[in-house]
């Protein structure tokens, strides 16, 4: 009896083994990256200026206002990173596919195309307008990519989804350039948006972003247990009382909301979701109730640190964060491809 109880505990661990330590490490890293994000940049600040900028809003020294400018940027990059992290783990759960990520599935490019079309044909210019265009673009693209990728035997295998995503991205990027070439003002506005930068952040874009973030998070957290059941297979999940198609739809919408809104405000940033989710899954296992919130934390850390790196490497200007994350994240894709069994490709 005694041994059975032991075993039971072993079989269904309520809390993953390293949860506390991962949480602590994650929060410490987040703290470090926030401070780094406030301190480092093309103009370094002293401790005095840093304190002034943070705690006395009336301070008017140059360094203090630099710090003040960096506050929204830091908050924004944390929020975007968290959104991308959650979006990545939702997409991976919904497609039951380890390489799902908004950038790989071409969703970012769909959002990009709609934003460019909006700038060129409908004269949109505020972040509130960008969001709706980007969201519809992201939604349509994800439906298309997933539809093409899941045709035929075996449903949506990683390879099929990836290729469908790559093909769609290529087509959409041709269209994007075709729209831009005759209109130099669009090109100018778009060129910097396209690389992916959180440097544009101000309090206004944070306000625009919050509702999407909250709704997306809420859906993700609420549907985590049901998604856990779905990981066992559709039949089993149905047997456990999960309405799989409804769940898929809702979770996919949440994922698109999160990554679409992020893309609208900062441009297409790739690989954050992939990176965050896989790092967390490696240490905590794939229980989505822990995976989703921790991916948010990891995503926030990854994006904020990448942004700091971009500012340090790119001095005196800055290297856009999308470039940095592609550099850190793409190797993860390569490693995944190397480790995967041939059959599951």
């Amino acid at each position, binding site marked *: 009896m005694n041994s059975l109880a032991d075993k039971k505990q072993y079989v269904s661990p309520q809390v993953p083994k390293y949860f506390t330590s991962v949480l602590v490490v994650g929060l410490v890293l987040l703290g470090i990256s926030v401070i780094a994000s406030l301190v480092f940049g093309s103009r370094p600040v002293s401790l005095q200026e840093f304190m002034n900028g943070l705690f006395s809003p009336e301070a008017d020294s140059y360094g203090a206002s630099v710090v003040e400018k960096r506050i929204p940027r830091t908050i924004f990059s944390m929020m975007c990173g968290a959104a991308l992290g959650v979006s990545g783990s939702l997409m991976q759960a919904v497609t039951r596919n380890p390489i799902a990520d908004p950038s790989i599935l071409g969703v970012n490019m769909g959002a990009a195309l709609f934003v460019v079309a909006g700038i060129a044909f409908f004269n949109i210019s505020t972040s509130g307008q960008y969001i709706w265009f980007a969201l519809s673009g992201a939604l349509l693209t994800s439906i298309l990519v997933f539809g093409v990728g899941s045709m035929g035997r075996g449903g949506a295998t990683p390879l099929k989804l*990836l290729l469908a995503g790559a093909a769609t991205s290529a087509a959409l990027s041709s269209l994007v350039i075709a729209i831009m*070439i005759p209109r130099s003002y669009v090109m100018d506005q778009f060129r910097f948006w396209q690389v992916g930068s959180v440097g544009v952040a101000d309090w206004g874009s944070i306000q625009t972003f919050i509702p999407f973030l909250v709704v997306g998070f809420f859906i993700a957290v609420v549907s985590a247990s049901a998604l856990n059941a779905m990981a066992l297979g559709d039949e089993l999940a149905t047997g456990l009382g999960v309405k799989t198609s409804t769940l898929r739809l809702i979770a996919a919408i949440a994922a698109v909301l999160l990554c679409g809104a992020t893309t609208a405000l900062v441009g297409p940033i790739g690989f954050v979701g992939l990176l965050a989710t896989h790092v967390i899954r490696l240490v905590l296992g794939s229980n989505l109730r822990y995976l989703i919130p921790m991916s948010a934390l990891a995503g926030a850390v990854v994006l904020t640190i990448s942004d700091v790196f971009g500012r340090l490497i790119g001095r005196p200007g800055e290297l856009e964060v999308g470039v940095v994350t592609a550099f850190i994240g793409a190797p993860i894709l390569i490693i995944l491809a190397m480790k995967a*069994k041939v059959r599951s490709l």
Partner: protein
Amino acid sequence: MKTQTIDYIITGRRQRKRRWFTITGTLAALAFLLMWAMLLLGNTIYPVQDVLRVLMGEQVSGASFAVGTLRLPRMLAGVLAGFAFGMAGNTFQTMLRNPLANPNVIGITSGSSAAAVFCIIVLQADNTVVSIAAMIGGLVTVLCLYFFSLSKGKSFSIGRVILVGIGIQAMLNATVSYLLLIGDEQDIPAALRWLSGSLNGIQMDEITPLLVIVLIFAPILIVLGKQLSILELGEQSATTLGVRTNQVRVALILSAVGMIALSTATTGPIAFVAFLSGPIAKRLVGAGMSNVIPSGLVGINLVLASDLIGQFAFDVRYPVGIITGIIGAPYLIYLLIRMNRKGDL
């Protein structure tokens, strides 16, 4: 009974051969027409005898500059790049037995592109250095692909090559984006060449290295065409049929990469030409016949026709890569759908 079968086989062979010659002849004729169209059409349409006189090296006022300096290099670059992309793409697709495994998708063109952009923007290098660097970039990408795809204890799979290739491509594209950002403002139009491929502003001295490379490597690919067809049957059958698989494969890869790298260094990665030519040529000539030369010809036709469309069909001049991208991507998606239905992936 027996003679009937033999007769049947012989007639079949003869028919396929006749079809091959008809198709190849038609493609060549079409390419010839398009080459003339490239020389004749433009802001001013010069009479044929003027163009002929320019080609003979005579000085004709007006025509000498427009045809000799602007249109002739453009046409030659299109022909050479189209031929090289078509043949090399077909080589990869046949060798890896998957139409999706082409230089665009697995990142070889991105490797050449990144190397070329680096030389131009950072090193301010001249044409020779750029060509050599593009070649090295392409080869290094292939080597990385090879080593990353051959992880120990796992069997070789095309799916893994493609996944790894897309990862590498993401990193290389991030590099190109970064290099373009640190480049000068006035480099942007030239920069678009590196994103999508363009024949604009190509000069005669850029053609020479490309011509040399095509003259060296195209015959190799043509001569090895038969071995390539046998390789498609699989490693074992090929060995049994007396093909030295390793040597042939190395020769094929080197020649294909050489052609792709130099074309990319001259015209930029013209989207999808390497991908489209092989499957189209195969459709046209039918199974069982070598489609090395036909796919090169299809490549020429694609590039020249797309460039003519890009130049004259709209009020704005689009670079050729945009047009091939918009034509090619739907075909890629169609191919994916068909392969998925058949369960080839």
